[in-house]
């Protein structure tokens, strides 16, 4: 049962073939069996999950209407607060903190009867592309335990690939949903900025952060997207419009006549040949399904990474200022408030977080603001214009999600630039605030590891990505004869 899709599980629940308690327990058992290898979870809420499952079962039994995903378990990235459940953001700083409130995403999951199994591992405060920056140790890629599962949301993607959960929530500031999806052979969606409430999402970079669904199929992601999406008055940047009809789009999957734009700048140098080969194969498939493939150019994308590494650190330097030992989290040292703040921040934050705080503090300093933060904002506008122009020629834009397959744990730990380059294809969508999706494109010939195909759509046209994603997924399933994740080696055998 745990290898089924969330939609299949939901159908089985609704048909009475299985109860949510049984389904939840099966996943808790899988976590107990494999998570010592994978380390996808920072906290498993055994009792809470069973209690939620029981409540859904009772509701269903009493004949009450339940939502489509009611009773299906889910793994929650540890950057979203859940009342009473430890939330660390992968940082020492928040060790032991139990938030007194639910994030809007969690509220909606609960309203939908989705069972929250626990909190997943991540790069500290979502800063990283490998989950190696977690203060609680790295997560291992279920495809090869010596490799990274992507980041920052490596815990969520690994949990999916290891069948510890059929659904997960991630957050994506520069690719943290999509790149982990790509390197674990799963599906990840960064919705349009403002499409899913950020209330209760511990901010890394407010203008870029976006929570979204992670799943093993495009349809599952769509169901989850509709469950968590939509306007929230607690988030001023939330868009007051209905959620795009993504489930209908995923079920439709008809791309005949759609124009698909290939971004010239997001391929070539720096991309692994096997990854590019899979990308081109996917394009051929889409063309064979009736889509028209066009090439588009987004010349300012060359500056995207630089702009991102000014904007995100600038915002994070301010967002992370609140971690000062005065009100919650750890407290280190004694003496004056200032001394305690200093000592706590020294111990509480890891290297990458400190690096970005320092970078951002510098970029916002008077005298440097215009040159750094100001210029970066201009680049951001230019990138948005690039997208606007490109969307004038195509309904969706596509690229490989990440330039390479999963690298080895430790391989890039001391080379931040090499690490940052992993997000080169995903960052532009965050800067422009539009949606992006990663679906598996296959296994790269040189290492047998999964690669991702990225689909981008204009703001609030998220349904287009689901249509294309579903079409590609269906065609590849036919081609392979089985889901890509059937190739994941057995775990927890020992």
């Amino acid at each position, binding site marked *: 049962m745990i290898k089924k899709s969330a939609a299949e599980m939901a159908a089985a629940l609704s048909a009475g073939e299985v109860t949510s308690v049984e389904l939840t327990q099966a996943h808790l058992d899988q976590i107990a069996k494999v998570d010592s290898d994978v380390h996808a979870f920072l906290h498993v809420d055994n009792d809470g999950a069973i209690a939620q499952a029981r409540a859904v079962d009772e509701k269903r039994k009493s004949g009450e209407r339940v939502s489509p995903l009611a009773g299906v378990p889910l793994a929650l990235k540890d950057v979203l607060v859940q009342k009473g459940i430890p939330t660390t953001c992968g940082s020492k700083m928040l060790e032991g903190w139990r938030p007194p409130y639910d994030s809007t995403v969690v509220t909606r999951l609960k309203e939908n009867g989705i069972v929250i199994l626990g909190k997943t591992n991540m790069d500290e405060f979502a800063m990283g592309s490998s989950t190696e920056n977690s203060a609680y140790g790295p997560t291992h890629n279920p495809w090869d335990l010596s490799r990274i599962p992507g980041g920052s949301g490596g815990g969520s993607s690994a949990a999916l690939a290891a069948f510890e959960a059929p659904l997960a929530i991630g957050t994506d500031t520069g690719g943290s949903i999509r790149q982990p999806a790509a390197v674990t052979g799963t599906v990840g969606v960064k919705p349009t900025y403002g499409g899913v409430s950020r209330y209760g999402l511990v*901010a890394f970079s407010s203008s870029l952060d976006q929570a979204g669904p992670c799943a093993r199929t495009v349809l599952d992601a769509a169901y989850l997207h509709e469950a968590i999406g939509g306007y929230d008055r607690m988030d001023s940047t939330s868009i007051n419009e209905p959620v795009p009809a993504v489930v209908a789009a995923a079920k439709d999957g008809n791309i005949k006549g759609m124009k698909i734009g290939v971004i010239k700048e997001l391929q070539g140098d720096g991309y692994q040949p096997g990854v590019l080969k899979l990308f081109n194969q996917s394009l051929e498939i889409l063309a064979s399904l009736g889509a028209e493939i066009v090439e588009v150019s987004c010349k300012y994308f060359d500056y995207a990474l630089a702009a991102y590494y000014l904007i995100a650190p600038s915002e994070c*330097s301010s967002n992370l200022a609140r971690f000062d030992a005065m009100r919650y989290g750890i407290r280190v040292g004694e003496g004056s408030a200032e001394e305690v703040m200093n000592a706590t921040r020294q111990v509480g934050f890891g290297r990458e977080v400190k690096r970005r705080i320092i970078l951002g503090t510098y970029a*916002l300093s008077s005298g440097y603001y215009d040159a750094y933060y100001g210029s970066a904002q201009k680049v951001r506008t230019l990138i948005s214009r690039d997208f606007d122009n490109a969307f004038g020629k195509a309904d969706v834009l596509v690229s490989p999600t990440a330039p390479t397959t999963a690298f080895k744990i430790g391989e890039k730990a001391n080379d931040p630039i090499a690490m940052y380059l992993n997000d080169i294809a995903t960052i532009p969508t965050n800067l422009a605030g539009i949606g992006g999706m990663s679906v598996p494109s296959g296994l790269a010939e040189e290492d047998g590891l999964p690669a991702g195909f990225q689909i981008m759509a204009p703001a609030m046209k998220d349904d287009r990505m689901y249509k294309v994603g579903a079409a590609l997924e269906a065609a590849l399933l036919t081609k392979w004869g089985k889901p890509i994740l059937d190739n994941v080696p057995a775990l927890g055998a020992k």
Partner: protein
Amino acid sequence: MALSYDDVIAKYEPVLGLEVHVELGTESKMFCGCNTVFGAAPNTQTCPVCLGLPGSLPVVNAKAIEYTIAIGLALNCSIAPYSRFARKNYFYPDMPKNFQTSQYDEPICVNGYLDVTIETDEGPKEFRIEIERVHMEEDTGKSLHMGGATGRIHGADYSLLDYNRAGIPLVEIVTKVVTGTGKYAPEVARAYVSELRDILRGLGVSDVKMEQGSLRCDANVSLRLIGADKLGTRSETKNVNSLRSVERAVRGEMIRHAELLNKSERVIQETRHFHEDTGLTTPGRSKEQAEDYRYFPEPDLVPVAPTNELIEKIRASLPEKPSVRRKKLQEAWQVPDKEMAAMINADVLDLVEETVKLGADPTRARSWWLGEIARIANEKAVAASELSINSKDVAEIVALIVQGELTDKLARQVVEGVINGEGRPAEIIEKRGIKVVSDDSALMAAIEKAIAAQPDVAEKVRGGHVPAAGALIGAVMKETKGQADAAKVRELLLKHLGQG
């Protein structure tokens, strides 16, 4: 030897800059739904948002925006069609996020003015104070430094933090540089804050209580030689908690600066704390190395873009200006200019108005507030409004006088009792046994006693020397412990001695 104020103004020209912070009287905070009532138990009016808990996000209070637009319009400002919030980054324990959400280079209201009138040697004169900007921000929490001698952070054993105030909407009103006031700088500063306070009160956007901190004034003062173009170095005086203090602080700083400049010493650009008791300032945080607040646009909020429709709706609902209101009162009360100015200066106009509303005649209401009560306030070096006597008490006392239940002299005792905190007028009259002796037979007994004690004086009066009666009246008043109506005593006495 301290320099005299006259010496200062003979040589220097003062330049002012006034920053007024106003706590808006909205029911909820600037960015969350928490209550804003003053004086609640510590940390009971907080939520994840105003505590800055991880993940929480701000949502702008629409009422606060409307109030700020109203303030801007009342101060003749332009309302920006598009303005943004910005983060002001600095670390302080009473600031939950370690940044204050404020407005920086895109404030909501800009370029206004406020005209104020003060009494000068040449009669009333109007000064135009130009307003640079009016912007919105959130208040910080409050630190209570425990232990140590000063109540300041230095030397404290530990500090307690109360976040009830954190996130209360604040509006900051900043003037442009104010020049040309000459020796009247202190009075102009005071008149500006006073006029601003009246406007804000009239708008109903704040309770503008300086003592409770809902209206706070920072006074920037600098001096330059008369005729010089270049501005001198300024000091910024905080903790100025009354109108009177505004005037004293400006005057005090002018003298302090002049003393330094006369000695060819440098004025340090710094924040100074005003001390109500001494009227002097002491240095606070030095601003020599300007703190870098790393302002940037608040990414968690969308820009404020009020529609023209909203702005015009607010403009149409603005109340009359305080100056118009004052004119109306003056006409209704038939008060000469000088008296009107005296009431404004003593800051009792509102109190008189309230007292009149409660039934007192304007002349009596005015003379009590401006006379006895103002005298006591002056003695105690506080504002009349800070005394424990209120307009209801005064209205009650005036009514008793009109009814003949109190004489002016007895009424003064009652006023004194109320101010001393002995209770409300009725209680004091009861407790002290204050009563007008109007019983003729009791008075006659006292009169006869007085005549018997001073037969020679009585003889003089009988002989037609009426002024001599004073001594006898005095004796009667003494006998009746001042509770007799002196006029009545006089009438009875003269009649008794054949002079009535």
